[in-house]
């Protein structure tokens, strides 16, 4: 696994899980105030973005290593990427969401760079 794939996948997993965490009432309320709950449309949007980011992370892993090892690497990235989400959500939930956007974008760029490389 090369460094670029690793970082791109990590950024995408972090972004995906941060986003998906907002579909859960508890974490949505952490950011938007107690008792608030995402609407149906917003929930769908969050789900879509979150799962898309995780899928792109899988692409980053598989692109470089093939399906067998790429899948194994992806599962490992899911663990590594989820840990900072848990920690941030417990100390600084707002930061988690802002970082999600940035890391998603960076991860996406990394993935494009991977495709462009020979």
């Amino acid at each position: 696994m090369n460094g670029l794939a690793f970082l791109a996948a990590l950024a995408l997993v972090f972004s995906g899980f941060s986003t998906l965490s907002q579909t859960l009432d508890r974490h949505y309320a952490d950011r938007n105030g107690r008792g608030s709950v995402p609407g149906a449309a917003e929930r769908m949007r969050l789900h879509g973005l979150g799962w898309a980011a995780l899928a792109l992370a899988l692409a980053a892993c598989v692109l470089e290593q093939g399906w067998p090892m790429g899948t194994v690497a992806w599962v490992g990235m899911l663990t590594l990427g989820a840990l900072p989400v848990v920690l941030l959500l417990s100390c600084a939930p707002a930061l988690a969401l802002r970082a999600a956007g940035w890391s998603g974008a960076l991860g996406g760029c990394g993935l494009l760079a991977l495709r462009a490389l020979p």
Partner: protein
Amino acid sequence: MRAGLRQSMAWLHGWSGLLVCWVLLLVFCGGTASYFKDEITLWMKPELHRAAAAPVPPAEAAASAVAFLQRNAPRSPRWFISLPDERSPVTQVLWIRAPGEPGSGIGGSRGRFESRTLDPATGAFLGTVRDTRGGEFLYRLHFDLYYMQPLWARWIIGACAMCMLVAILSGVITHRRIFQDIFTFRPRKGQRSWLDAHNATAVLALPFHLMITYTGLVTLMFMYMPWGVQTAYRGDLQAFNNEAFGRAPLGLPSGQAAPLVPVAPLVAQAMRHWNGAGPSRVAITLAGDANATVTISRGSAGALSVDEPSMRFDGATGKLVATSGDAPAPASQTRGVMVGLHEAHFAGPLLRALFFVSGLSGCVMVATGALLWGVKTRQRQAKALAAGARPSFGLRLVDALNIGAIAGLPIAFAAYFWANRLLPVAMAHRPDAEIRAFFAAWAVAAVLAQLHPARAMWRAQLWTGALMLAGIPVLNALTTDTHLGATLLRGQGPAAVAGFDLTVLALGIALGAAAWVLGRRTAARKAVPAAHQPHGARDAKGAT
């Protein structure tokens, strides 16, 4: 245990986990360290750090190893050669002592083998390298334990692994809000924080935990469940091994002398057959006899499966006799992949780091589970304890075992590495001395914990572990020249050595942080004019 599936599974999870958690912690710590066992061994042999520089082609290394064996073990019926690779820069040779040689019959199966480490470029015995089991000790520890017959150890570990499997499955069933709580961590809330930590480390690495436990059982499955071989092959294990793994039995010497063919062209032929993939092992039987065979195994580094394709040549003529493993059957391949996933032999440095992180997550999961049990039990006994009663036998025992295992194991690991640097290089039985240091340190920690299972003991042992681990890079700098200054800052030494120094430093800092937090909470509690604090009681680290 009556009302409902979730309650019965909660009960089962608690007990199947608690009874084996301290052994499992040892297994997880040893196993997690094993992912980098070659790197650990390299760190523990500073004399080899220079040799890790120039890689030698496999054909050359094989030829120089054969030359050594022909000089030093000419009548041995079986030679094994492990060729150097990126993780291990030296050649390992192993041979069975020929019948009639001194020492060939004694010492059981271990006594019949002799092994040497060779310089791959010259085939010379690397005699002055300090003798150490290195990372192999930690690897063996996690399934063969120590100070007992491997067979007993493997049955014990197997039973613990089954308990772990039951604990995982019952844990998942009983975890009511497994998806809603997946990112939940509420710090500084006592029992709930411990539960959150246990859930997070368990669920976020759940695929790994399930995989590592099941595949661990699979690695020894024919020992634990021989009944398939019993019914389908009427107990003929050799016939099964032959059909399933293509292993040929050791042939008989013909009595006719025939010089062994040069091995290098055979290795080259094998590499061509495997499209350039490097060979990893050469096994030679009956060298010098007309019935000699040379079996070359391909490294499984590129594939998930641990089963290696191999090619068997006639040792006297060089003719190819058989190839195996190029197209394995589904169930065999499944088993190969399962064992491969457990060992992660295929993993490059970054992927290996992911396995390592998941393994650490497993260690934290087991530790927080054990601590959670103690916290819950202490809560149940809170009234009695506040009234001045002593903790129950079970609670005191669990507290003591927790300290001895969770704080004691890091001390033991650190002691092993300290011994490696401090013991004289040329001393006799050096590997045993290093291993004794490991167990002696652990024993001291465990006994002290039994004598005084209190918060002060936690802090003392955590600080000791932290200082010993973080002190290893310093010790390295004082005793060798491949310390972080050279390996990291000047970028010259082997990267593995720098990685080791940084990892133990990070672990030491983490332990120190835990000890510091514990100290602050103790100070906070002492500052409050508290009710009478019972003797020997240790409240939860996170309790307010």
